[in-house]
């Protein structure tokens, strides 16, 4: 059992467990923490795939940024409501059946399809390649992404402003 296989199983267990926690725990705050764990585990998977740069982005943006925003939102609404929010679920059976069906559908494709070629050796540094691509062929989408982020944040600000 190589280090990669061991790492994969660890990450897989953590990721699936944390995901279950996200969707099942009644406490919204706990759910957010589980999400953070899941995001970090995802970053671990990225590391296993030799994408160190994405691991960093995942940690900074997701685990750092998104989770923080969500926590802020929860705190804000709880303060407005004046009580802690308890999550409830609806149509649990329906949701479970559909989710399992989708999983079975995807897994059916994966199992039924031909096995892919083994992982090719990776000589260079993915970070360097990403950096070259971002200022090379993908420069324009990259800039547009910046515009999108600015617009989205301004829009969020506009929505969430207090009316005075």
């Amino acid at each position: 059992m190589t280090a990669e296989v061991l790492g994969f199983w660890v990450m897989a267990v953590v990721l699936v467990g944390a995901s279950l926690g996200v969707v099942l725990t009644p406490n919204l705050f706990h759910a957010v923490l589980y999400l953070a764990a899941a995001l970090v585990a995802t970053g671990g998977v990225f590391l296993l795939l030799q994408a160190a740069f994405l691991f960093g982005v995942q940690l900074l943006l997701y685990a750092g940024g998104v989770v923080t925003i969500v926590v802020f939102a929860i705190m804000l609404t709880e303060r407005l409501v004046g009580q802690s929010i308890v999550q409830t679920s609806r149509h649990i059976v329906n949701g479970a059946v559909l989710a399992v069906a989708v999983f079975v559908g995807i897994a059916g494709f994966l199992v039924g399809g031909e096995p892919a070629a083994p992982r090719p050796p990776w000589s260079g540094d993915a970070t360097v390649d990403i950096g070259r691509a971002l200022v090379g062929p993908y420069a324009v989408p990259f800039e547009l992404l910046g515009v999108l982020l600015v617009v989205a944040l301004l829009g969020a600000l506009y929505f969430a402003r207090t009316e005075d």
Partner: protein
Amino acid sequence: MRIGSPALALLVLALPFASFVLIALVRPLRRAGRAAGFVSIGCMAAALAASFAVWTRGMIVDGGHNPSRTWGWLPGDGGPMATVGVMVDGLSMMMLMLVTLVSLLVQLYSLDYLHDEPPPSLGRYYAYHSLFAFSMLGLVLSPGFLQMFMFWELVGLCSYLLIGFWYDKPSAARAAVKAFWITKLGDLGFVAGIVMLWVQTGTFDFFELFQMANSGAPAAAGFSVIMFLIYLGAVGKSAQFPLHVWLPDAMEGPTPVSALIHAATMVTAGVFMVTRAFPLFALVPDLLTLIAYVGAFTALLAATMACVESDIKRVLAYSTVSQLGFMMAAAGAGVPEASFRHLIAHGVFKALLFLGAGVVIHLVHTNDMWRMGGLFRRFPWVGAPFLIATLALAGVWPLPGFFTKEAILAGVLAEGLTVPFAMLALGAFLTAFYMARAVFLVFFGHPHAAAAHDDHGHPVPFLMDAVCRALAVLTVALGLSHALSAHHDAAPGWLPWFSLALAFGGIALAWAVYQRRAVDPARLSAALGPLDFMARRRYGLDALYAGVYRGLLLGFSRLVGWIDRYLVDGLLNVFSAWTLRAGDAARMVQTGQPQDYVYGVTVGVLVLMICAQWLWQ
């Protein structure tokens, strides 16, 4: 065999066409009325002269010579599929003269007869007349079935237009439609027949067909059916039983039209066609026998109906049907020459009869013979031509009807067709009877009170009078020419006397009944009981046609109405109700809750997956 110049024949054809185009297109001329008449008459006079030139400059050639001059038409893979042109042989030259002559005289006569007509409608009248003359001339000159069929339909159109000339009169409009429908019934057979003939032989051309007939080529299976279908066209056009019912109704048109189209020319087109295509009909002896029987039966049936009519024009109309039956019977008996001679002679004296009847109607303002009487004393110059024509029709020596009718009887007898001979003989007797009856009722006897009141008011218009006299002279001349060139070789010696006896017997009976009043007409009709009853009701044929027509039409309309009301509307109602209900049901799907839409998306993705999985394999 005599043939004429194609160029001159084309000139004859072109003149009335030019007149028609001129009158139809030049509006001021048409609206001027009488001026249009003068144009038309001038063209007809020139056409008559040209017709005579065609005849006199004709050459005698041997039988194998092609009398047609044709040009290719309808280009096909292997040369033209059909030809147009003119066929100038003895038959068509005689018809040219008859058509142009009667047309000219009738157009002259119409100038006075339709004196009170408003100018625009008079212009329309002469446009139709020119078109008719063109169509009829084109028909008789046709070198092939296809061209003949086209002109055949054109004369049918003219007939329709002229019967319905007073189209604001409902009965005239109805009669026009009836004539059109019933002749079209026969034309269906005609067109089917000529197309089938073309499929079998590859040509419409008469001359080529005759050559094939001589070598016996087309007498293949199905040929008798083809010829029967073609004969159906003649049944419709020449008013043979059972399609004769339109002709008496066609009398709703102006009297000169009846004289030209429904006595002298158009209705004889069927007889002409059978005569023209006789070598083809001769290949099917059974069909000839049928033609003879139908013709003889028509002759007898129409004669009985003529005996009970009181409308003078309808008497003449039934008489026309009857005489057409004679002609057809002659053609069926294998003597188309006799048939054709009767056609020409009949064209002249029947036109005279109609035109004379027109004068009478003009004088007394009624069609009812019972309300006329004693006109001969007051208008001898009207009565004399009418009398001559009557004697000609009855078959009195030396007028043309005697010779031609005797030739027909001789031909039928020689063929051994005893039953048709008996029917024709009885028909000839009745012909003499009803014509004499008409003469006695109209011209002799006591002046009827209704007709007597304006004794001096009406001089006979000059042109009408002159035309009648001209036709009377022509009738006598035709009879004398027959008498001088008489050659009854095939006829048994007793036949002329028998024929004469029939004529005089009929006249004598009519004299006894209607002039001497020795026998009361009522008692005579009572003695004939059921026959009289049936004849007065036209043997129920008109009622039958009307019933069938109405029944079919109403039945079909009801069916369509039912389908529309219950099937179409019902279907639509069901669909709209379902749509409403389905919409109501589908509305419930839209809960407005975002997650329910996610359910929809998910289910959609699953369906796509299943489809993809399915396609993959």
